[in-house]
């Protein structure tokens, strides 16, 4: 059944249907509506047996989830921005211990300067923490990916974050078909933990590992991520069969087959991008769009397959590595043979700046004409820069 529903609410309702047993949360914008809704659902008794733990920090939120998961409970939390950074140490720990926690990240910029609006700096800063990262294009995807995330996490015994753009998705009311409870139960079996804190079979979890085995642990973490590539694709197919609608698995190509130039992006900006490409296609510019749902693991083969013979790649980045350049661009260069292709990085929408069709059109027109530079900051306000420079000198 379709309903007009806020993104946060859709995610909360979906998570509820996944029957979490422990939900813990520390409030941070723009994640708040998700955990507010879940706290109400738990308090009403609708989710019983489920414990909602109001913790004193994001570090504690992830730590409670770690304890809960190790004790055999399906555990969920949500955060954003500074909160994700505050739990960084625990993120590595959760993945290192192989605990299948699912977390929503309501993507938001990182300060200073403090900024509560959307970009991907938070999740991308944690790209190497061993979690799987899935990015939602719209609120339907945000809801559906949570069901897939629980299944994926528990099959591989590894944690998954579902990233959805803060405010742009979390606070937007859209038409969403919530995953049906019966279908969710069919798709998502009961949690069978790989390791369990159990007095009847005592195990030591979290031992100290020295140089003689640490490399092997990291190698296995990589192997798990690579295994996820195949599983995500399969689970997306199975999702369609169960729920009767598609969910983007690794990547979602749009008009790529005959494209000279393919724009790669993640998250909610894909909608605007597709509209822009449609417009420019009318004018005869052969453009395509490739949305990445999976960022970790990085779906190199799926990307290579989707971009085919495109001569030019434009990577639209919602985060930035100062002193280097585009984060997705760097991964792309490492994963794909780029010889014979031109790769452009366009940094856009940092700290919530709107990414408009007009600006995208300018950048993509320049790309198609071969005049776009290797690194562009979309809509960079030169006047503001001069003003800041003048103040600095005064």
């Amino acid at each position: 059944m379709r309903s007009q529903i806020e993104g946060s609410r859709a995610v909360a309702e979906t998570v509820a249907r996944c029957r979490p047993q422990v939900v813990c949360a520390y409030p941070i914008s723009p994640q708040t509506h998700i955990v507010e809704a879940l706290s109400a659902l738990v308090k009403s008794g609708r989710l019983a047996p489920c414990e909602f733990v109001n913790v004193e920090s994001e570090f504690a939120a992830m730590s409670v989830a770690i304890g809960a998961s190790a004790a055999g409970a399906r555990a969920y939390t949500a955060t954003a921005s500074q909160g994700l950074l505050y739990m960084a140490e625990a993120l590595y720990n959760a993945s290192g211990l192989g605990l299948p926690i699912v977390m929503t990240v309501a993507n938001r910029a990182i300060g200073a300067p403090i900024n509560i609006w959307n970009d991907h700096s938070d999740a991308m800063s944690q790209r190497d923490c061993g979690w799987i990262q899935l990015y939602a294009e719209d609120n339907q995807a945000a809801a559906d990916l949570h069901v897939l995330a629980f299944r994926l996490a528990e099959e591989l015994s590894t944690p998954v974050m579902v990233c959805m753009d803060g405010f742009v998705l979390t606070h937007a009311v859209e038409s969403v078909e919530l995953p049906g409870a019966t279908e969710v139960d069919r798709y998502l079996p009961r949690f069978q933990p790989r390791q369990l804190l159990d007095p009847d079979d005592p195990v030591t979890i979290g031992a100290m590992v020295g140089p003689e085995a640490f490399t092997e642990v990291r190698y296995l973490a990589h192997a798990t991520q690579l295994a996820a590539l195949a599983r995500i694709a399969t689970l997306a197919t199975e999702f369609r069969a169960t729920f009767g609608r598609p969910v983007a698995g690794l990547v979602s190509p749009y008009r790529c087959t005959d494209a000279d130039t393919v724009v790669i992006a993640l998250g909610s900006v894909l909608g605007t991008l597709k509209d822009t490409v449609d417009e420019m296609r009318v004018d005869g510019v052969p453009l395509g769009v490739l949305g990445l749902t999976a960022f970790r693991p990085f779906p190199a083969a799926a990307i290579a397959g989707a971009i085919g013979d495109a001569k030019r790649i434009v990577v639209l980045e919602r985060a930035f590595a100062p002193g280097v350049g585009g984060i997705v661009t760097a991964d792309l260069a490492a994963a794909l043979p780029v010889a014979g292709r031109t790769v452009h990085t366009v940094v856009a929408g940092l700290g919530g700046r709107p990414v408009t069709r007009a600006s995208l059109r300018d950048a993509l027109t320049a790309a198609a004409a071969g005049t776009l530079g290797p690194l562009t900051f979309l809509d960079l306000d030169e006047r503001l820069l001069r003003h800041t420079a003048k103040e600095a000198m005064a």
Partner: protein
Amino acid sequence: MTPTRVKFYQTGSFAVGNRLLPADLRAVQSDPTRTNSLTSGHRACQGCGEALAARYVLDAAMRASKGRLVTVNATGCLEVFSTPYPETSWRVPWLHSLFGNAPAVASGVAAALKAQSRTDIRVLGQGGDGGTVDIGFGALSGMFERGDDVLYVCYDNQGYMNTGVQRSGATPPAARTSTTQAVGPEPGNVFGQGKSAPLIAMAHEIPYVATATIADLRDLEYKVERAMALHGARYLHVLVPCPLGWGSTAGQTVAIARLATQSGIFPVFEAEDGVLTASTPIRRHVPVEEYLRLQARFRHLFEPERRADVIDRIQAAADHNIERFHLLSGEG
């Protein structure tokens, strides 16, 4: 789990006296079928107070929970010396996550057990003073105020011993550590700093707060049993001398813990719902100097000359404890 027969040398010094008692009154450690939760072969230093305390605490908690116990451990000596992969000394379900999150992880375990209706299983968190009173303090306070069903045990050796004896918020005044060196006009740790985690725990008005030392192991067992008889957030703070960090000989660990209580510098007490309910009276009162002299971390108070001014300040702190906790009134 199946009990194992314990080797005789592990049964503890007061096992012999237990033979005169009826079986149900004997110490946990005197029971040859006790769990032996932290088994032999671990890599603690000779004379480690923490290893001794942990064994008594865990075995007592295992008996009180009828073997239905799960433990969460902060990073620190206890974690490092007990679990060098692929070995483990733990014969109880044991989880180590991070340095600063053991109370929160324990809260998560408790929440999971409640959600799964496995409430017959009890949760015990443990860590050193660094993991408890410093880096894990926010998580500890959160666990307390929510009333999560966890017994948290702090093994207090008054510093970061695992990383090479640095100062913690539990390091006493004047003590030399590698970050409070015995140099300058006021050598060692500064006066007026540090905190009492048990008193702060009491301010949360949780069901049970107690202190103990390894000098009175029967009392330690009793306090674990008492704590396990209650539910909600409970806190046990155990003084565990550290030969490495305190600069004492391995054979004096227990004696030093005893002098800490007999001088009044470490008050032994119990509190319920934030109210002091009992304190252990001092049987043989000694000046703090007897306690300080056995430890190289206080050597600068006696060499090259005796620092009467500093010793007097430490004695004043002990006297204050004696008054505050009624340690000489005989009304304990």
